[in-house]
């Protein structure tokens, strides 16, 4: 298994859609073979088409508002003492999170395919919010599948989805979280694939969805590459990129442009959700050595029992609360390009407190996991090491959880 240079990672899968010969693929119902093949053909044609790229860039610029800021966290750096801590404030993007890139591209593709309806899954509610926003923008009718537990804990995003005119379909099966929302969304697509485009909310699902999402979020690292050069004159000699990993869409996008660098120069650190410190449940299949299994159409490391039943996860952050992980990250782990670790619920809350105390930045619970590990590592690193954390979502959606866990005085929301 080898990571090739000069070929985008999304294009390194084999004919059947497997990265490294074993991650990904298309484990789907026969009914979906044709719609998936159609989407593959469309995407392969458009992703190198200049007009389409211009169109994408126009929407990214005028509507999403790229580039998002790269800022130095001076106070936090001073407090921690060690490496320089920076943040790429991806939550600046329209809607407040990185999910907008994938949502916009999917709507563009749906329009090109002549589809009038679009469906998507969501955990934290950002993928749903962004898809509903984009659907509205592009004149598509939209349905969002969301676990009943997530509907309860991410109300601000649920309200936003409804406000955008999309229908929220609550999913009551299983653990009532993201894993069940994705299953339900795929089932709906099986029955309606002739009229409806499906947007999988992360770099998961049958390989085409992994590729589309990775291609879309890579916008983040394209910007970062330019911003780092502007800031330092060249890519720093010691650069460490921290990102939370649930499905893995923001982290992949945050790293993609730096893939060919030696990891001694540009290191990738993925932070999974370790769950509550006292609980055995977690959402960190890469960190805790879960076995390879099939989930939502793709082979990946996934939390499961001996019989192949998918195990329930537990995490304070709905966006990371997923038993599997992108085939791209399984691949990056096995070729040792990225390293993965986990932060607990408590770690994430502590990091949120610290970041909001010292900086005018409000990372949601998902990136707070990444901040936790970055802050711990930064203490031990030299001053010329540049640590960048992707603050990929805003904490407004977590208002209720944060108030409950930390008390109202910690959490000021406008």
């Amino acid at each position, binding site marked *: 298994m080898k990571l090739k240079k000069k070929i985008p990672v999304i294009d390194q899968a084999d004919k*059947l859609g497997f990265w490294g010969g074993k991650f990904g*693929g*298309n*484990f*789907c*119902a*026969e*009914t*979906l*073979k*044709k*719609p998936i093949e159609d989407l593959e053909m469309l995407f392969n044609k458009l992703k190198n088409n200049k007009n389409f790229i211009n169109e994408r860039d126009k929407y990214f610029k005028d509507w999403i508002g790229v580039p998002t800021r790269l800022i130095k966290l001076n106070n936090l750096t001073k407090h921690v003492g060690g490496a320089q801590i920076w943040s790429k404030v991806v939550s600046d993007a329209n809607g407040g999170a990185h999910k907008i890139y994938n949502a916009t591209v999917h709507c563009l593709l749906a329009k090109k395919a002549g589809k009038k309806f679009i469906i998507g899954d969501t955990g934290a509610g950002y993928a749903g919010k962004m898809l509903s926003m984009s659907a509205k923008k592009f004149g598509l009718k939209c349905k969002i599948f969301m676990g009943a537990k997530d509907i309860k804990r991410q109300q601000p995003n649920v309200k936003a989805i409804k406000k955008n005119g999309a229908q929220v379909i609550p999913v009551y*099966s*299983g653990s009532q979280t993201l*894993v069940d929302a994705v*299953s339900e969304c*795929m*089932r709906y697509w*099986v*029955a*309606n*694939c*002739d009229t409806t485009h499906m947007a999988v909310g992360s770099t998961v699902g049958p390989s085409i969805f992994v590729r589309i999402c990775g291609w879309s979020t890579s916008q983040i690292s394209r910007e970062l590459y330019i911003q780092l050069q502007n800031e330092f004159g060249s890519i720093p000699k010691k650069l460490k990129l921290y990102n939370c990993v649930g499905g893995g869409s923001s982290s992949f996008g945050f790293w993609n442009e730096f893939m060919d660098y030696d990891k001694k120069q540009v290191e990738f650190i993925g932070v999974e959700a370790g769950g509550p410190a006292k609980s055995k449940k977690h959402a960190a299949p890469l960190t805790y050595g879960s*076995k390879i*299994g*099939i*989930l*939502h*159409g793709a082979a990946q490391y996934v939390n*499961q029992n*001996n*019989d*192949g*039943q*998918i195990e329930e996860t537990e995490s304070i952050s709905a966006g990371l609360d997923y038993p599997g992980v992108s085939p791209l990250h399984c691949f990056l782990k096995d070729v040792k390009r990225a390293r993965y670790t986990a932060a607990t619920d408590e770690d994430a809350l502590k990091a949120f407190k610290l970041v909001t105390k010292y900086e005018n930045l409000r990372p949601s619970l998902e990136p707070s996991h990444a901040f936790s590990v970055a802050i711990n590592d930064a203490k031990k690193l030299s001053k010329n090491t540049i640590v960048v954390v992707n603050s990929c979502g805003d904490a407004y959606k977590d208002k209720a959880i944060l108030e409950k866990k930390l008390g109202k005085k910690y959490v000021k929301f406008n």
Partner: protein
Amino acid sequence: MSNLINFAFKKAKQESRPALLTYIVAGDNSKKNSLKILKSISKYTDILELGVPHNALVADGNQIQTSAYRAIKNGIKLKDIFYIVKEFKKREHLKPIILMGYYNMVYQYGENRFLSMCKKVGVDGLILVDLPWPENKAFANKCKKKSIYFIQLLSPTTTKKRLKKIINDSHPMNYFISMLSTTGGKLKTSPREILMNYNKIKKINSRINTVIGFGITEKTIKSLKKADGLVVGSAICKEITNSIKKRQNPVINVTNVVRRLKNKIK
């Protein structure tokens, strides 16, 4: 490659009727009842499908999902499912049984070990919903070596070019999905159109027994009588759910449904 499934189709043809295939989820609503249901309905059913429940199913509708979750909650494991088949076959060794499920179950158990167990307990065929062609080629070959049919699914969305390729690699039985739907959806395509699509498939190779499934109930079964076989699943799972709700005996109720289904296609 001859096996009990072929004899079942032959027998139905001699009686000028389609074969009746019934699907229940193993362990629904208990291990014991699954075995009782199989024994009881085998009098009317030609081929028994036994579902291996999975908790991340992506092609099944509400009824089968409900049954699957119920079975998992009751603690059903693969070893129990093999036990059910073994016990059933002790008495009804000529009645064919097909296991139907998702690939992860096989993958975790190990393909070779899974097939050895199937052979040992008397499984005659396998349907893996999320292992389509060409991904299924290697596994289908392994099945062939054990004389177990690997039954492939064909859909209204399958292109003609693809149909030919799949059928070319087919074992003697295929499964045609009547419409764009998960299992148990309401029949939204007319029987005439379904049979038209079905005939296109049969034209490519008429010798392969092809059954129709999805959306088949007591109401609709008669209209599709011309097929080699018809599968009823969700309607039966629903009957189990209703029986539990009404505190009635699911074995008796399911048997009654299956008997009525059989009478409609006689």
